[in-house]
C-alpha cells in the first residue's frame, strides 16, 4: 500500500499509492470507455456485474489464500524443519536471515508491503478509491509468506485480507466500473480473503463490517456475503470442512463457572492493554529511526524471536495454530502457558514493530488461548470444585483477546464459534468478551488499528466511533405545530382574514388527499395578488407537495427538502395526515450543533 500509510511524507505522488506508476493506471484505462458513457449505454450493467464479480473475487481470493497458506507451510518446513525443538541452531539463525531478505524486499522492491494489511485496505477504501496494485498484492504475498514461514511471530490472516482486497481491486478495475463500485470492491475482497484464511465466513463478514466499512450497508452486504462464501467453499475444497481447532465438548456446569470466565475476561482486557501499549510504544520509535535501519530492524527482530525459540519456546514462532491446539488439549502447565503468552507478546511486538509484513490476528488468538488455558489450568488445580475444561478456557481466551485487542466484540464472538464449530460455549464467550472489551476500552481509548493510523499520519475513520455514533432522527428536532393550518378547500379570503389575525410568517395547507403544502408569507402574498378572493387555496397552489416524512427518519433526510419548503410537517405513520410536529432548517441545524 502507500507510503503514506506506513511512512508519511515520502510518497512521490500525493494521493497515489506508493509503488504505483501513474502511467500504469492510465494504461489500464487507455482502451476502455468512460464509466459515465458505460452507464449511459447500459444502466444496469454495473449492478449485475457487481454480483458476478463478487463470486469471481471470492473464488480467486480463496485460491490465493490457499496458495499463501501452503507457501507459508512450505517455507516453514524448509527453513525451520519439520519438528522444531529448543536447541536447534537453525531456530536461532533462520529468522534473522529471513528478516534480512524480507527487509531488502520491502525496502527495494515492495515498499507497500509493510504492516498487517488492515489499515492499508482501509486506506485503499477511503483514500484511493479502492485501488490496490498488483505489485502490492504480490509483495504482500511474498514478504509476509517469507516472514511468517521463517518464524516471525505474525499471522497470515491480515495479509490474506489485503490480498483478497487486492484481487478485488485488480479484477474490478479491468471491467471499468464506476468509482463508487470500485471503492466497494475492496471490502468485498477483504471479506473473501479473511474468510478463506479463517475458514469462517460469518466472522469475516462481520469483521469487514465492523472494522473496514464501519456500518451495515445493504448495497454491499450481499456481495460481501457472496464473496466470503465463495472463498470459504474454495478453501474448504482444499483444507476440508473441519474447524481450525478441535475443541472438547463444553458444558456449563453451573453459574459459578461464569465467575471464572469473568476473571478470564478481566485478565484478557489487561493482556490486550499490555500488547497495545507495547506496540504503541515501540512501533513509532522504530519508525522514527534513520531509513538505513529499516534494513536491519527485521533481522534483529528475527534474532530476538529466534533466541526465544532456541532457548526454550519455539512455540512462539509463526502463527502457532498447532500450539493453540495443544494448549486446548491441556498439554502444558499453567506456568508454561503464561510464559508463552508473555513471550508471544514480546515476540509479536518486536516482529510487528520492525516493519516485517504479517498480521496480528494469529498472535492475538495465540496469546488469548495461552492466557485462557493458563487460567483454566490454574483454576482446575487450585479450585477443584470448579468442573473446568482447559480447552474451553483457551477457546474463550482467544475470543477475549480478539475482542479486547482488535475491538471487534461482535466478530470475536462469532469467530470463536466458527473456528471451533462449538456453539455450546456461547454464553461464557459473550460474558468474557464483553468484560474484556469494556476493560480494554476503559484503559485504552483508541483501538490498535486506529493507533497505527495515527502513527502513520493518516486520518482514517474510526470504526469504533462510527459504530457507536448516535444517529439523530427527525423526532430529535421536532417542535409543535404553531403555524396556522388551513384545509385546501379554504378560500383565499378566509385565509387572508385569519393570517391577518395570526401574524404567522408561514402557513400549512392540508389537502384532501392527505398531503401537505407549506408556504411563507411572500408566496401567499403573490398567490393572493393573482387570484380572486373566492378561489380555494388548493387551486392556487403549485403542483408539488411536501414528501411524507416521519419522526423516526434520520434527521439528515429532511435537509434536501428544506431548500424548497420553508417548513416540513412530520406526520404520524399510523394516521395519514395527522401531524406529529414540524421542523425548519433552523431546527435541524440547531439540533446538529447541540450534538
Amino acid at each position: 500500500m502507500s507510503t503514506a500509510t506506513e511512512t508519511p511524507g515520502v510518497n512521490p505522488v500525493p494521493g497515489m499509492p506508493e509503488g504505483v506508476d501513474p502511467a500504469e493506471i492510465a494504461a489500464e484505462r487507455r482502451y476502455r470507455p468512460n464509466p459515465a458513457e458505460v452507464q449511459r449505454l447500459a444502466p444496469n450493467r454495473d449492478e449485475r456485474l457487481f454480483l458476478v464479480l463478487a463470486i469471481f473475487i471470492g473464488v480467486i481470493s480463496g485460491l490465493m489464500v490457499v496458495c499463501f497458506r501452503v507457501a507459508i507451510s512450505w517455507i516453514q518446513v524448509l527453513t525451520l524443519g519439520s519438528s522444531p525443538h529448543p536447541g536447534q541452531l537453525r531456530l536461532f539463525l533462520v529468522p534473522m536471515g529471513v528478516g534480512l531478505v524480507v527487509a531488502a524486499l520491502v525496502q527495494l522492491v515492495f515498499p507497500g508491503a509493510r504492516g498487517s494489511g488492515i489499515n492499508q485496505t482501509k486506506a485503499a477504501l477511503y483514500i484511493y478509491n479502492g485501488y490496490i496494485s498488483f505489485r502490492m498484492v504480490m509483495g504482500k504475498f511474498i514478504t509476509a509468506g517469507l516472514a511468517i514461514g521463517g518464524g516471525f511471530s505474525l499471522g497470515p490472516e491480515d495479509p490474506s485480507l489485503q490480498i483478497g482486497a487486492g484481487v478485488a481491486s485488480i479484477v474490478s478495475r479491468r471491467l471499468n466500473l464506476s468509482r463508487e463500485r470500485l471503492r466497494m470492491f475492496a471490502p468485498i475482497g477483504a471479506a473473501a480473503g479473511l474468510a478463506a484464511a479463517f475458514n469462517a465466513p460469518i466472522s469475516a463478514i462481520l469483521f469487514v463490517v465492523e472494522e473496514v466499512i464501519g456500518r451495515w450497508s445493504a448495497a454491499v452486504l450481499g456481495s460481501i456475503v457472496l464473496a466470503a462464501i465463495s472463498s470459504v467453499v474454495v478453501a474448504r475444497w482444499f483444507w476440508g470442512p473441519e474447524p481450525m481447532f478441535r475443541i472438547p465438548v463444553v458444558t456449563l456446569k453451573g453459574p459459578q463457572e461464569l465467575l471464572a470466565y469473568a476473571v478470564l475476561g478481566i485478565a484478557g482486557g489487561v493482556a490486550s492493554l499490555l500488547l497495545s501499549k507495547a506496540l504503541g510504544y515501540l512501533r513509532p520509535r522504530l519508525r522514527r529511526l534513520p531509513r538505513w535501519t529499516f534494513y536491519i530492524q527485521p533481522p534483529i527482530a528475527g534474532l530476538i524471536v529466534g533466541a526465544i525459540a532456541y532457548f526454550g519456546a519455539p512455540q512462539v514462532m509463526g502463527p502457532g495454530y498447532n500450539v493453540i491446539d495443544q494448549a486446548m488439549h491441556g498439554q502444558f502447565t499453567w506456568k508454561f502457558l503464561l510464559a508463552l503468552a508473555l513471550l508471544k507478546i514480546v515476540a509479536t511486538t518486536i516482529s510487528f514493530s520492525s516493519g516485517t509484513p504479517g498480521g496480528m490476528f494469529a498472535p492475538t488468538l495465540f496469546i488469548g488461548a495461552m492466557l485462557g488455558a493458563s487460567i483454566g489450568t490454574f483454576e482446575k488445580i487450585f479450585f477443584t470444585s470448579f468442573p473446568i475444561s482447559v480447552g474451553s478456557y483457551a477457546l474463550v481466551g482467544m475470543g477475549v483477546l480478539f475482542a479486547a485487542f482488535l475491538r471487534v466484540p461482535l466478530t470475536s464472538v462469532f469467530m470463536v464459534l466458527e473456528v471451533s464449530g462449538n456453539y455450546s460455549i456461547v454464553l461464557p464467550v459473550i460474558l468474557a468478551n464483553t468484560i474484556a472489551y469494556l476493560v480494554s476500552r476503559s484503559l485504552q481509548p483508541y483501538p490498535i488499528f486506529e493507533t497505527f493510523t495515527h502513527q502513520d499520519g493518516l486520518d482514517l475513520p474510526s470504526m469504533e466511533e462510527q459504530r457507536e455514533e448516535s444517529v439523530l432522527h427527525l423526532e430529535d428536532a421536532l417542535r409543535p405545530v404553531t403555524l396556522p393550518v388551513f384545509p385546501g378547500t379554504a378560500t383565499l379570503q378566509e385565509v387572508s382574514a385569519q393570517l391577518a389575525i395570526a401574524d404567522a410568517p408561514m402557513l400549512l395547507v392540508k389537502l384532501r388527499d392527505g398531503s401537505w403544502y407549506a408556504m411563507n408569507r411572500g408566496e401567499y402574498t403573490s398567490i393572493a395578488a393573482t387570484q380572486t378572493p373566492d378561489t380555494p387555496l388548493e387551486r392556487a397552489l403549485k403542483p408539488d407537495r411536501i414528501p411524507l416524512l416521519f419522526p423516526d427518519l434520520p434527521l439528515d433526510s429532511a435537509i434536501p427538502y428544506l431548500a424548497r419548503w420553508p417548513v416540513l410537517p412530520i406526520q404520524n405513520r399510523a394516521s395519514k395526515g395527522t401531524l406529529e410536529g414540524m421542523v425548519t432548517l433552523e431546527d435541524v441545524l440547531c439540533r446538529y450543533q447541540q450534538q
Partner: protein
Amino acid sequence: MSFFFALKSPLNASDRIERRRLIFSDTLSMVTLFAITALLAVLTNYLYQSYASHQVELAARWLQRGEQALRDNKPQAAIDALSSALAFAPNDRSTAIKLAEALADAGRIQEATVYFNALLESQQGNGLINLQLARLAARQGNESQAIEDYQKAIYGNWEGDGYVRRREVRLELINYLIAHHRLNQARNELLVASGNAPSDDISVQLEIARTMELAEDPGDALHVYKTILHHHPSLREALDGAGHTAFQLGYYLQAKHYLSRALELPATEPGSDQGPAGALRQSRDELAEASRLLALYPSPRLNPRERDSRILTARKLAMARLAQCTRDKATTPANLPTATSAPAPKSSSNPLQSLASRFSRQPSKPAGDQAAPPAAVDPLQGLLQRWQKLPAKISMADLEKDPELAQTQVQLIYDTELITQQVCGAPLGDDALLLKIAQAPNQVEEE
C-alpha cells in the same frame, strides 16, 4: 452477456455499436477472468497436492520414529515425534491414540486423558479409546470412572476381532475389580465371560477358571475345570485347578482324585508342563493333606470297625486340643488373675480330668454372670461340660453298641475343633485336618 443489458433501449446507431463493443469487451473480460481463475485453480491444486503429499511423507516419517521410540521405551522422544507426526496429519486417529499412549507412558496422565477424551468426541463408543481411558482412570485411582470406561469399552465398537477384544477387556476389568476387592462385581463379570467363552477354547476357559479362583469363587472355578476335563481329561492345568478348587471347597476326595491324576501325568504329556516348582509343591502338599484328611475322616461309608477306630483317634486329638487350648487361655493376660491365683497343674495322664479339676477351682462368679448360659460366657466351659457328660473312657465296643454315642462323639469332636479354633486360633497337624473336616463334614467325600 446480453443478460447485463436491457433488450430494448432508445439508442442511436453509433450507441448501439458502442454497446456491442462494450458487450464484446465485457464478454472477453469475463472469459479471461474465468481462464485466469481456472489456471489459478490448477496451479493451486498442484501446489497443494505437492504439499499434501510431502505432509503425508513427513507424518509417516515422524510416526515411524515415534513408534520406534515407544518400542524403545523412550516416551518423551515418542511424544516429540508423534506430536510432529500429528502436526502433519492432524486427523490421523491412530497417531493421536499413540501420542496419548506415549503421554500416559510418560506419566502425563491428565494430558493423555484429555487427548483420549478429545478423540472420543469424534468417535463416540470407540472401544479402544474407552479402554485407554479406563486404564488412565485406573492409574489415577479413579475406580468408578475406570469401571465405567471399562464397561463402555466392552460394549463399544472394535475394529477387526471385536469378540476377542471385548473378552480381553472384560478379563482386564475383572482383574481390576479383583485388585480393588470388588469381588462380587468381579464374579458377576466372570459369569458373563464364562457364558460367552467358546467351549473349544481351552486357554480362555482355563484363564476364566483361574480368574474365578482369584475372585474367591472356587465353586464356579471347579465347575469350569470340570467342563474342561470333560473334553480334555488329561489336561494337567485343569486337573491341578480342579484339585486346588476342590480342596478349597472341602471336597477332599475330589481333590485327591484330581491332584493324584495331575501328579501322575508324565512330563511329556501335552499340557503337562510341570510348571513352577512352587505350584508343584503346592499340589503335592495338598494331595498329601487331602490323603491324610481322608484317612482321619470317620466316613459313614467305612465299615463300623474302621469308622469307630477313626472316631477314637479323633477323640484323642480333640481332647488334647481342648486341654491345650484351655491351658493357653488360662495363661493369656486377659485371664492372668485366674492363672496366677490358681496355676494350672501339671498335665495328668487324663487331660480331661485335669481340665475338669482346674475349672472346678475357679473362683465363683457374681450371680448375674452365673445366670448367663455357660457357653455364652465361655465357650470352652460349655464344651468341657459336654465332654464331661460323655463317659471318661470309650472303647470301640461302646461305639459299636451305641451308634448314637458314636454320632454324639463325632459331633463333639467337630465342635471342639471349631470352638478351640475360635478361642485359641488355627490348629496345626491333624487337628487342622480335623477342623477342615468339621467345617464341612458332608463335603469331604462328595463326588
